[in-house]
């Protein structure tokens, strides 16, 4: 039983890591369809990764070991987060060693290392990117925490599997506080994953870029890791969102093979739906000026806090 | 016997130095006389500790723990000040501020001043007490005007007139006291002014008369203590006289004047039982503390600054004596001791600092720590001590005063603490900028005597963390005596 669970957890994580770029490809493809373009195909991210992994790396002379280590840390942190978050089942091995707060901490590790690496070379763009990333971070991080707390207050736990189990175990109740939290979460998700309206992952427009500015100096394997970590991050956020707000269909430890297969399919469907919605949002909104970003995130933060307050006021 | 010697030595000293004070070795003689006075006072103290209070000279002189403690303190500070004054006055002579003839006057008056203070402390006769206080004023007037500059003459004039008038009120008070006592004791044998007798029959004295008498006595001796608003002579006299004199004025004369007030308070409170005297003292004390604190903020002259600080501390002591009771009196006596020691130590350092800088204006004094670490550290530590920073003894007594005030007079506590905070800011800001910083001052022609400074501060430090049981018992006895 335990061995099975172990295998299941490992395979879930490995699968998620492998599938993450596909998610990115799907979003891009959906966007292209929505914009009446043909698009580069679902597998474009994999092609990009293969290309990058083939190339010789170019590293600035002024780079320090931190610069080179950072992509590994980013990827490692994201992969670990994937291992913690329930993708299609709540059988994560590390679930009890890191709760939602630690998850936020993990994301923060990735962010801090990205920002530090960006500052390492000492170019104007690198520091600019780092500054903007941290600006996003200092608002989105507490907002994310607040979202988690709303769920935690409802379920009396900060452990993601327990949240999911509690949410699904009783019959459908509409939590007004969760509605606020969901709104806030979507906004945080957009900001954290460098999507429109905060950032545009597909351009290098110097004055508006955030995430791209930080990785300007990276190439080849380092860049590949970073891109992959980005994809993983999107997957992680999607999985978190789905676990919090659409927790149904996740398999529990001890479920039979059929149930697991079903939950896998349900999870894939939910992720596809997520991609479509994300593409829709991105297509329908315009990019904000960089200094509107704090307002956007501030709104997200306040919404999340309101969610908490609403929970306190109305009770569960 | 020790008592006679105690009075005789400074008197003789005044005579001898009056004749030979212009000689080169006069400062050393001054030290020698002061030292023998101190030794004698120790003998007397030992005698009191051994035998308890006693009367001498047809009851005209009286020694009890209260005054013998002040006698010892006075003799000690008198001695250390004379040690300080030795190089200090030499440097003043070197700078041409005084000549030999003035030095003779200085030394002679210094001893005479000691004599008058000791007389005031030791006498049992309230009339003699008055005479001695007046005489102390007269001798110090001459000392304050020693430099014969416009400012020093002005200061001395104000000192003389204000204290003279003030003390005249005290005489009226004494007359009223005599008047009341004479009705009980009779005029024969002239015992009606002897404190011991008065104290014995204080319950029978006429309350109305004593109340009136106390008003006059308080205003009179209070002027000399420097209680606001009677204090106006004090900063001037402290600022313009030679620094050793500022040191003894602050450290000793104010104490002696306060001693007179307290002696009278004991009688009056005994007679009236109304607490009026206590309340008056508390009121004056608080007012002095408060006013002095705000005055401190505007000072430019360093000696004036510490003059006001003396007003503040006299206010605290007066307040404490006003509250009365074993703890408050204990605290007041302790505060008298530590204030005398600390303030005179400060004046010692201030004196040398001013000599180095050639000015008393604080804005022109900088970087004492660099030019002379001992002076700088002495001033800095002394200031911190006087501001009531632990582990120095001033904190100990202030702690006792404040905690007692919280119990007995809670309304007064915030005022007291506010004043202490303001005073802290005012004084420390000034002193810090004098002690710190860079400077181009030069060393002095004679090596300064800073041993007294550190001896005083060491004693104050000791009193801050450990009061020897003997001393504590002694204070307790005196405190009980004051009631």
């Amino acid at each position, binding site marked *: 039983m335990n061995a099975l669970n172990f295998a299941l957890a490992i395979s879930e994580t490995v699968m998620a890591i492998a599938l993450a770029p596909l998610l990115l490809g799907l979003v891009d493809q959906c966007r292209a369809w929505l914009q009446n373009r043909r698009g580069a195909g679902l597998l474009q991210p994999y092609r990009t990764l293969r290309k990058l992994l083939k190339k010789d790396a170019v590293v600035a002379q002024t780079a320090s070991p931190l610069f080179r280590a950072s992509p590994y840390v980013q990827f490692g942190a994201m992969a670990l987060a994937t291992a913690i978050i329930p993708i299609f089942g709540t059988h994560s091995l590390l679930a009890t060693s890191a709760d939602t707060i630690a998850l936020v901490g993990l994301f923060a590790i990735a962010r801090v290392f990205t920002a530090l690496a960006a500052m390492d070379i000492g170019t104007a763009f690198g520091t600019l990117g780092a500054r903007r990333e941290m600006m996003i971070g200092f608002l989105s991080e507490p907002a994310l925490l*607040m979202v988690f707390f709303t769920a935690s207050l409802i379920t009396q736990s900060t452990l993601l599997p327990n949240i999911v189990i509690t949410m699904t175990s009783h019959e459908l109740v509409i939590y007004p506080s969760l509605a606020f939290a969901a709104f806030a979460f979507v906004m945080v998700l957009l900001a954290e994953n460098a999507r429109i309206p905060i950032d545009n992952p597909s351009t290098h427009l110097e004055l508006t870029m955030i995430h791209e500015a930080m990785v300007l100096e990276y190439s080849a394997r380092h860049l590949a890791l970073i891109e992959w970590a980005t994809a993983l991050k999107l997957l992680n956020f999607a999985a978190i969102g789905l676990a919090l707000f659409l927790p149904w269909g996740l398999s529990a430890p001890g479920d039979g093979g059929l149930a697991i297969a079903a939950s896998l399919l349900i999870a894939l469907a939910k992720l596809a739906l997520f991609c479509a919605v994300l593409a829709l949002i991105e297509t329908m909104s315009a990019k904000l000026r960089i200094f509107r970003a704090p307002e956007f995130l501030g709104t997200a933060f306040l919404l999340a806090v309101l969610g908490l307050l609403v929970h306190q006021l109305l009770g569960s | 016997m020790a008592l006679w010697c105690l009075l005789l030595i400074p008197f003789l000293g005044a005579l001898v130095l009056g004749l030979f004070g212009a000689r080169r070795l006069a400062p050393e003689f001054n030290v020698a006389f002061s030292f023998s006075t101190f030794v004698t006072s120790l003998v007397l103290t030992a005698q009191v500790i051994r035998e308890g209070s006693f009367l001498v000279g047809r009851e005209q002189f009286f020694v009890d723990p209260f005054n013998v403690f002040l006698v010892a303190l006075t003799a000690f500070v008198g001695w250390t000040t004379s040690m300080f004054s030795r190089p200090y006055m030499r440097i003043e002579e070197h700078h041409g501020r005084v000549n030999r003839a003035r030095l003779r006057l200085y030394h002679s008056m210094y001893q005479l001043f000691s004599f008058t203070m000791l007389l005031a402390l030791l006498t049992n006769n309230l009339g003699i007490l008055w005479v001695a206080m007046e005489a102390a004023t007269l001798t110090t007037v001459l000392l304050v005007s020693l430099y014969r500059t416009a400012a020093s003459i002005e200061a001395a004039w104000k000192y003389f007139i204000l204290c003279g008038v003030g003390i005249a009120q005290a005489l009226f008070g004494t007359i009223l006291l005599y008047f009341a006592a004479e009705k009980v004791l009779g005029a024969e044998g002239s015992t009606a002014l002897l404190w011991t007798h008065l104290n014995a029959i204080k319950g029978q004295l006429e309350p109305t008369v004593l109340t*009136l008498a106390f008003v006059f006595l308080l205003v009179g001796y209070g002027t000399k203590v420097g209680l606001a608003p009677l204090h106006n002579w004090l900063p001037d006299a402290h600022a313009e006289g030679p620094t050793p004199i500022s040191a003894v004025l602050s450290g000793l004369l104010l104490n002696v004047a306060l001693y007179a007030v307290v002696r009278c308070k004991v009688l009056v409170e005994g007679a009236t039982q109304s607490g009026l005297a206590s309340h008056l003292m508390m009121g004056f004390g608080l007012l002095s503390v408060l006013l002095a604190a705000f005055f401190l903020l505007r000072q430019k002259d360093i000696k004036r600054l510490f003059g006001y600080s003396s007003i503040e501390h006299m206010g605290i002591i007066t307040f404490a004596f006003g509250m009365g009771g074993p703890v408050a009196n204990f605290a007041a006596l302790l505060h008298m001791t530590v204030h005398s020691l600390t303030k005179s130590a400060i004046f010692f350092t201030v004196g040398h600092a001013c000599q180095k800088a050639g000015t008393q204006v604080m804005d022109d004094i900088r970087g004492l720590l660099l030019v002379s670490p001992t002076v700088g550290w002495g001033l800095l530590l002394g200031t911190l001590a006087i501001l009531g920073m632990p582990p120095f003894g001033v904190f100990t007594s202030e702690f006792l005063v404040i905690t007692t005030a919280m119990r007995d007079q809670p309304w007064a506590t915030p005022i007291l603490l506010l004043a202490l905070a303001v005073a802290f800011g005012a004084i420390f800001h000034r002193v810090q900028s004098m002690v710190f910083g860079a400077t181009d001052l030069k060393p002095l022609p004679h090596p300064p005597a800073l041993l007294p400074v550190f001896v005083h501060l060491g004693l104050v430090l000791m009193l801050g963390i450990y009061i020897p049981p003997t001393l504590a018992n002694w204070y307790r006895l005196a405190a009980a005596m004051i009631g």
Partner: protein
Amino acid sequence: MSLTPLSIILALVLAWFAVGLLGLIAPRNVAWVGRTLFPLGAAMGLAMAVAAVLAIFGATETRILAIGLPDLPMHLRLDALSAFFLALIGVTTTGISLFAAGYFRGGDGTAPGLMGLQYHVFLASMAMVVLADDAFAFMVAWETMALSSYFLVTTQHRVPEVQSAGFLYLLLAHIGAISLLLCFGVLQGGSWQFTFDAMRAADLAPAWASVAFGLALFGFGAKAGLLPLHVWLPEAHPAAPSPVSALMSGVMLKTAIYGMVRVSFDLLPHTQWRWGVVVMVVGGLTGLFGAVFAAVQSDMKRLLAYSSIENIGLIFSGLGLALLFRGMGMGTLSALALAATLYHCLNHAQFKSLLFLVTGSVMHATGERSLGKLGGLLRHMPWVAGMALIGTLAMAGLPPLNGFVSEWLLLQSYLLTPSLPHTLINMLAPLGVAVFALTTALASYVLVKFFGVIFLGQSREPTAPPARDAGLLERAGLIWLAATSVLLGLLPVLVLRALDRVNLELIGSSLGERAATWWSVMPLSSERASYSPLALGIGILVCVALTFLLVRRLYHGRIRLCTPWGCGYPQWTPRMQDTAEGFGQPIRRVFEPFFEVQRQTPTAFDSAPKYRVVVTDRWWGLIYAPIIRLVQMLSRWVSFLQQGNISLYLLYSFATLLTLLAFVL
């Protein structure tokens, strides 16, 4: 005298004194003072930590010394709370003293020997503060601590700013002390015994208890740097030599926390929940304020000073929570909040000292404190940078380091507030947790700025000679503190077991043995929340290592070095990197109303364009300036009394006489 922990600790305190005095033998001899005495002091610190840890698990000890007031000899008491703080002092000072051994050199400031005396008196007085068991002993130790640290702050007294910083510090410390004195006066509650035992026994009316609590909050808040009494902190910390800043920020501020805990949990047995609300609100605001201000600083030590204010805010908000729970009679929850608070004290002591020491090394290497002139030191000072990175990550609250553990515990306690039976608090708690979260997030912003601007990028002053890495002793100090930061993060069980003793003593309830195992922390129940730092740490390491190995296997390209690309801009100088001001700019814009900003922007036609921005604290103008004006006005009025006219003076005497006569008539 048997060899109890208390006697060992007392002996160590005396030994610190002695070490300090020994420095006066040859005050200018760096080898003697630095290489001999300071390491000796460090060893004593370690010994103290060991003795204190033993004492936490031992019985409470009391002793009466033969010094002090005649009626109130100094009482000492070593219980779990004081032992915990002694351990904190011991552990932290070990690192700081080691560093200081290499740091202090001859120079134009105070002689090293004298500084050694002040330093060790400072240490000894902090230990005595924690041991004191009566008001007098406490006040003496407390003020001695203020005084000795004041002297240490003003070491470089030739600099005018240092003077004013020192003055402000001592003034506020003194005002705080006055408030504490008043507080003790209220606490004794009519017994007029000033021992803490009497205060514990005193039965105060609730209103008086609140007054005492308010006074304590003011007094200890002034020392800790609570809003709005924080003004001295950003001045004094930069002025002091770095080991001293480390000591003040890392250790001395904690004595204020100790005092607060002692008064509010021990001396005031009947907690009122309203106190908790007040403390929580003040703490939360302080935290946010500190973080926001830290983000816009351009002096590295000021930045850290504001960050200390931030952490103090967090600690106080946790303390508020603990009081709140206690006031509501929820022992276990209160125990959790208190444990989290004290844990954060310990953590903050480690990483903040570490970072202050780092600034010391940086200043020694470059002579610069301004972030605008630093940069790229990672290449020249790998050791310092490495340790700084650990400190930075710890303070930014990243798992699995120590900052995260205590913040995690604090957040867990916040999540328990819905169980409180009070609507207002239930509404306040979400706001509290929001502010808390925002503050911690801002902290990572601040620390990215701190580390990035100093150690990463290129030197912003390219002409400066290359910096040298820290010496051996300095390195040892840094490593010690970094190691404690990591250990405290990975093995919270060590601390939580000790803190449970404190909880039992102060609150009467505890988290229990099950709350923390070697493997993981489960403060209340394993369903509710758990965190396993070891697992997470190993997980991160494994993931990163696996990634590394896999990429190595998959990847076949080589590495080429070239000039940075920078979007292909042809002209590129290190001065084009973000400055500290630039990095703080988003925060400045977002939190505009917090600041008073003076900006000097160039126009397009300036021949020598200059951009300058000065950010100042509004509190000064709001509170301090009016007070100063009021006092000055009063003193001006008072000085009208003294016009130099003798007739007037006589009139005063006369009027006094007549008034008094009329009064008694």
